[in-house]
């Protein structure tokens, strides 16, 4: 029956608490201990009192020694508070995690075979622990951070299966670690910034943790002191670890690194909830939009330091006529200002220093680290290998006291047409990690992609073959599984979440309450609200009003299908593909030279 429906009560925020085990007694105990005992309960909203937040948005974990809480590179939306026992934070990569998909080329096969042979030889020799350590250091070659793989095991069953380290003291001895003690919090940085975990956390002994999901963390930030504590930790922690990840800092001595960490400044630009501003500014002319972007470093100004993008996206641009021309977009780990500083360092006092040749602006929201010029000159540039140094600036556009040399419009960014680059940045499409692009020069509009999507999702397609167009490229309205999924910010139940392993943004149908928060905050309109149905296909309607219950739906990248997204494999003309727009190299490979 087409109009059959089933009446239910409107779903509510805490219909599905994080854990059913959080009894009133446990909550009272938590309220009596810091940091919750220090919070002003009166400051919390009446609809979401502190006790309810703890009851519904937190859960207890009782861990045994060696249990892995999360691994570096995983996505996670929770912070952890240590209630009892100690936790070890590993700043080195030592557990086999998600690896990039291997391409079985001839060279890759040879590498694999050699690695296997070396491993077999190493096992045969049964070297002792100290030799193994020494071997590890020498094998790791350029990057000492990647220590040898630790032995791991698994305990528990089903959803409760946990990975654990078999030799905790040994692994702690072999790796760079820091300790988290009772009363301290960890993991909140990844939860707040929607970024992958930057370290691995392991229980050092039997311990008890309180997991606070992002939705609860956001509500707890209503307490002023707690918010300040989080912000301070967010800005101040893990700097050395971040710097070590940057290619140019690989060979810096420990002493110099200490100096760099002392001198480095952690700065944030723009608004973390940038989607609201984006919608407002979307109809303004491009030049105005760029002018309004928070300026990180301006062309023509003195090169005061080296900027390293820590999170978000930044636009590298230069003045062109009356506007600004985008040259590239920088994402996590990218460096700005090194060319100018290296140029000035090389020339010393022989010639006057040159200013920044380009500008750096925050697209939406950017976390960046600035290392002052003096520190760069003393502790960074002397350690950078010649091959890592940027090319000499032969003809600087900006020189102090001299007229600005106007740049030609020739293409400077590798293989990507400037117009396409401007388009991707202006529309913030660079955020998409699995964007859907359709080559309109090949697409016959047969809609086989839509049909394949529908047949995979119970008869209803979860994307639309329409969307923004640039030249022959159409960026269809399919969830892009963004690097910075702003749709997750407002979800009160955590129904829209990120898969910890794959990084795909998914919606949990059972916990979605149809509040439209995600659909309204998606800057690309890629989330739609549809009438919710029960298992028999009957529409769910609200008991009191008779209105349909809505639910958010979007592309799930066919996460359960082994062959990948159905839309891509169903295209008979190779016109549709999913790819990472946040990766400039991939954009150049897929779209370079054939933009319009």
């Amino acid at each position, binding site marked *: 029956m087409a109009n059959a429906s089933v009446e239910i009560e409107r779903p509510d925020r805490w219909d599905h608490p994080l854990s059913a085990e959080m009894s009133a007694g446990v909550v009272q105990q938590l309220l009596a201990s810091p940091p919750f005992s220090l919070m002003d309960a009166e400051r919390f909203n009446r609809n979401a009192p502190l006790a309810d937040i703890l009851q519904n948005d937190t859960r207890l974990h009782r861990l045994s020694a060696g249990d892995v809480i999360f691994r570096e590179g995983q996505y996670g939306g929770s912070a952890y508070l240590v209630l009892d026992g100690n936790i070890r934070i590993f700043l080195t990569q030592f557990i086999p995690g998600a690896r990039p998909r291997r391409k079985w080329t001839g060279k890759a096969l040879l590498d694999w075979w050699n690695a296997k042979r070396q491993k077999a030889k190493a096992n045969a020799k049964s070297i002792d622990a100290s030799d193994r350590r020494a071997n590890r250091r020498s094998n790791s070659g350029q990057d000492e951070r990647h220590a040898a793989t630790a032995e791991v095991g698994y305990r528990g069953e089903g959803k409760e299966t946990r990975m654990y380290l078999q030799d905790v003291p040994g692994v702690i001895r072999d790796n760079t670690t820091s300790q988290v003690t009772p009363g301290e919090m960890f993991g909140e940085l990844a939860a707040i910034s929607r970024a992958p975990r930057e370290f691995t956390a392991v229980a050092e002994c039997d311990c008890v943790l309180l997991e606070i999901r992002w939705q609860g963390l956001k509500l707890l930030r209503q307490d002023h002191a707690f918010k300040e504590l989080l912000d301070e930790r967010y800005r101040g922690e893990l700097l050395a670890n971040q710097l070590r990840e940057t290619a140019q800092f690989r060979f810096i001595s420990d002493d110099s690194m200490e100096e760099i960490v002392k001198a480095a400044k952690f700065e944030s630009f723009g608004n973390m909830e940038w989607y609201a501003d984006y919608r407002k500014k979307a109809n303004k002319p491009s030049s105005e939009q760029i002018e309004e972007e928070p300026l990180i470093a301006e062309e023509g100004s003195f090169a005061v330091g080296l900027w390293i993008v820590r999170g978000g996206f930044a636009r590298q641009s230069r003045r062109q006529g009356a506007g600004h021309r985008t040259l590239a977009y920088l994402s996590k780990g990218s460096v700005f200002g090194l060319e100018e500083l290296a140029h000035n360092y090389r020339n010393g006092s022989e010639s006057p220093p040159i200013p920044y040749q380009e500008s750096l602006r925050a697209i939406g929201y950017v976390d960046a680290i600035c290392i002052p010029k003096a520190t760069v000159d003393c502790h960074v540039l002397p350690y950078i290998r010649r091959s890592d140094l940027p090319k000499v600036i032969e003809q600087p556009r900006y020189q102090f006291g001299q007229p600005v040399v106007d740049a030609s419009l020739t293409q400077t960014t590798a293989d990507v047409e400037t117009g396409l680059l401007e388009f991707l940045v202006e529309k913030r499409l660079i955020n998409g990690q699995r964007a859907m692009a359709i080559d309109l020069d090949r697409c016959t509009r047969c809609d086989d992609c839509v049909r394949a999507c529908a*047949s995979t999702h119970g008869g209803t397609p979860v994307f639309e073959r329409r969307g923004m167009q640039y030249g022959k490229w159409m960026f269809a309205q399919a969830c892009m599984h963004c690097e910075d999924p702003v749709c997750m910010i407002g979800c009160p139940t955590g129904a829209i979440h990120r898969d910890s392993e794959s990084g795909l943004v998914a919606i949990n149908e059972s916990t979605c309450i149809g509040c439209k928060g995600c659909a309204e905050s998606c800057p690309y309109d890629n989330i739609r609200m549809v009438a919710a149905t029960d298992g028999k296909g009957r529409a769910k309607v609200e008991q009191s009003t008779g209105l349909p219950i809505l639910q958010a739906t979007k592309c799930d990248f066919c996460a359960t299908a082994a062959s990948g997204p159905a839309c891509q494999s169903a295209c008979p003309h190779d016109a549709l593909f999913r790819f990472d727009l946040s990766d400039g190299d991939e954009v150049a490979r897929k779209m370079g030279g054939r933009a319009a």
Partner: protein
Amino acid sequence: MSSLGKRRLIASVVTLAAAAVSGYGVWLAEIRLGDPATVSGATLLAATIGLFGLSARKRSKRQIGRPVAVWMQVHVYLGSFACVVFLMHIGWPVYGVFEQCLAFVFVFVSATGVALGFLSRSTPKRLAALTKDQVFEEIPALQIAIAGNAHTVALESTQHGEGATLAEFYQRRLLPYFRSRRSWAYCLVPNGILRRQLLRELNDLSRYLGVPGQVSLGQLAQAVRQKDDLDYQYALQARLQYFYAAHVSLTWSLAILVAVHVALVFRFQGTLQ
């Protein structure tokens, strides 16, 4: 050479080699006083079954095996091979009503297949050259909206004090244009003849109009262009769909006729009692 060029070259060489081997097999059967038609017929039957692979892959709910694009490539080259073998298989003239029907259906399916191959490469480029890509099913609704706007502009033009010059032209020339769908001939060969003619006639009216009339004339000209763009998109997409429908619909007739043909062959060879 690009990877696409390399792929095409390899596929073409393989297809030609397969055709040469089949030709050699037929020739060998002939000089050894065998039955060359059986050799070519068996090859053609195998190729025809292979051609149904694309349809099967498209219909499979599970995404089994390679992407559809790969199957499409196989379909194209296997289809070319089947055409060559078909020429080896049939004699000339074709005798018998049943054989003539079978040959006709095969030729029709092959011809629509070739046309589809050509259209599926040329049509997307022509569609992409237009300002905005519209979804096929939404085009009629957009055309109705444009016609409504044009009607309003024409009615308002009578208020300008310039008489009914524009309104009369609208009623005589533009109303049928906005109200009617384009002919099947336009669908087959979309062109800009009518668009240019109407715009020229509209332009000729400008000497009789004042400033407000000129504005209305500009709006009507814009509506003519928009309608024509939508007609053009509709015709290009519809043409592709009609050819596809023709190709697929007779495919099933071909399958039945081939099955009967094979049964008859076995029957007359004495294999099938």
